[in-house]
């Protein structure tokens, strides 16, 4: 009997540095599976963000470029413009993309750069220790909002996917999650579509993944899944938000 389940070629053998219950590992695997299935490993370059996933290049077996905080879409733009034959993707967290990197992502999307962005939204800054992000939920306690996010002072969480979808330029924009097994297939489908649109030279593609951060949320992995389901999913609804016409 042949192998029915194997580690994707795009993934390397490494001991994870991510915390128990963190969703980065699942998302990494989905990206790797998609890259294998599309047979693009040899022409793919990943752009790693600043945040917990800065070391993501340790888990993949193709070219990687590190980024400065928030600047990955600009770096990907530079790469893709001078080497349109490459498949270029950024992988960014919500502090990175929705705060310091808002300008770069909006303009890359609006120019219709033929790149793919995987946006991991866990409502908090992970690597720096759980500070408030632009995506932090109302009343959510973080190390810099110890009494809960006060929306009168700092506004409502930013729905990045909807914001990008409001641009008039053609794009593929979807929001999925990986918190439960039933979500994972849909998330992978969205990631695969996103890469396919890039390969076809169609448009900018963007997949937001609603994620958990048990460590910085102060919850167990199981509680974190429940919290994301109850607090985040109603505010960050899943599905395709924009598809190319």
């Amino acid at each position, binding site marked *: 009997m042949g192998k029915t389940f194997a580690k994707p070629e795009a993934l390397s053998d490494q001991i994870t540095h991510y915390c128990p219950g963190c969703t980065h590992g699942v998302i990494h695997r989905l990206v790797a599976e998609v890259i294998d299935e599309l047979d693009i*490993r*040899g*022409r*793919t*370059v990943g*752009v*790693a963000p600043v945040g917990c996933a*800065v*070391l993501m*290049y340790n888990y*993949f*077996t*193709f*070219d*990687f*470029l*590190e*980024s*400065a905080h928030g*600047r990955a879409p*600009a*770096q*990907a*733009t*530079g*790469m*893709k*413009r*001078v*080497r349109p*034959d*490459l498949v270029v993707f950024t992988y960014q967290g919500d502090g990175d993309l929705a705060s310091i990197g808002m*300008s*770069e992502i909006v*303009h890359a999307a609006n120019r219709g750069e033929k790149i793919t962005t995987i946006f991991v939204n866990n409502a908090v800054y992970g690597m720096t220790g759980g500070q408030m992000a632009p995506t932090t939920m109302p009343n959510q306690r973080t190390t810099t909002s110890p009494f809960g996010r006060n929306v009168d002072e700092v506004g409502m969480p930013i729905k990045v996917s909807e914001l990008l979808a409001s641009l008039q330029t053609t794009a593929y924009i979807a929001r999925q999650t990986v918190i439960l097994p039933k979500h994972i297939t849909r998330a992978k489908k969205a990631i695969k579509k996103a890469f396919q649109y890039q390969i076809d030279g169609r448009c900018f593609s963007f997949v937001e993944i609603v994620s958990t951060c048990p460590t910085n949320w102060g919850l167990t992995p199981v509680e974190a899944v429940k919290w994301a389901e109850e607090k985040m999913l109603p505010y960050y609804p899943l599905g395709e938000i924009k598809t190319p016409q």
Partner: protein
Amino acid sequence: MGKVLMKGNEAIGEAAIRAGCLNYFAYPITPQSEVAEYLSRRLPEVGGVFLQGESEVAVSYMILGAAATGERVFTTSSSPGISLMSEGISYIAGMQIPAVFVNIMRGGPGLGGILPSQADYLQATKGIGHGDCRLLVMAPASVQEAAEMTMRAFPLAEKYLNPVMILGDGLIGQMMEPVEFPDDLKTEPSKKDEWATNGMDTRGSNRRNLIRSLYLDPEVLNQHNLELKAKYDRMQQEEIRYEAYNTDSDYEVLIVSYGTMSRVCRTAVDQLQEQGMAVGMLRPQTVYPFPEEAVGNAAAKKSCLAVASIEMSMGQMLEDVQRSVKGRQPVHWFGKCGGEVPTPEEVIEFVRSLTK
């Protein structure tokens, strides 16, 4: 191709193309926007890439991304824009990838003004970005030299896997002069497959490349910084360029000046000579690495009574001149920094005052 009359900014754009660089990302800022205007029309003609970024911050990272593929790339900006790019420049230096930055300096600090200045000397030569990073910095004194330095910048950036900067003042960008682009300065990009993130298929390799500036292990980071230092030390050995003027015979005063300011000083030196006063001049063409030994030796000449650093800043190069002279002579400063270039008469009056 013979000589053509061109504005400095346009000549810099054309020089990059002639050197073999077909990729340019930029954000408009006076007094260098003509580079972007020129290249937005010219690059499509030669199958190149032109993109106007949303900010200088973004542009510096577009440069980083493009450079990481091993393709030649450059940008141009002016003082406040370079401040914004300095973050990206530090990353590019830390990642050890080649790129070319042109700073056509205007007056500062803050918005300052839009007229010529040399007030980014310290930023360019000593403090371009966070961390122990240095650029190789060349300072042109004519449109011809701006073109040639731009052409030389690309192979130098590749030789050192480090950003190279052309540091010109607003006049270099704005004035028109005859210029030609020497064919022998056209070069091919050097070997890049060892480091470029250009896709494994491009290299026909199974080994992936990784470009980064993060080294969490303190010993490894220290080693990384020692490697960078070795490159900067090598620049000191191999890249110093300067021009000596009127230094063969005895002189009473030694002027150190660069860029547009040095051309005014040259006129002053000639006029002083006619008036019977011998003055020598040393013009750094690289300001990092600085021609420390040449300035020191020129100042050590027995006839020399004083040294003057004459610049369009409030005495920024002065620190390098003092360091080079090592206290053997008094070192004086003269300059202006509002956008006006001191006149030959003002320079003459100042130089005369030094021997009274």
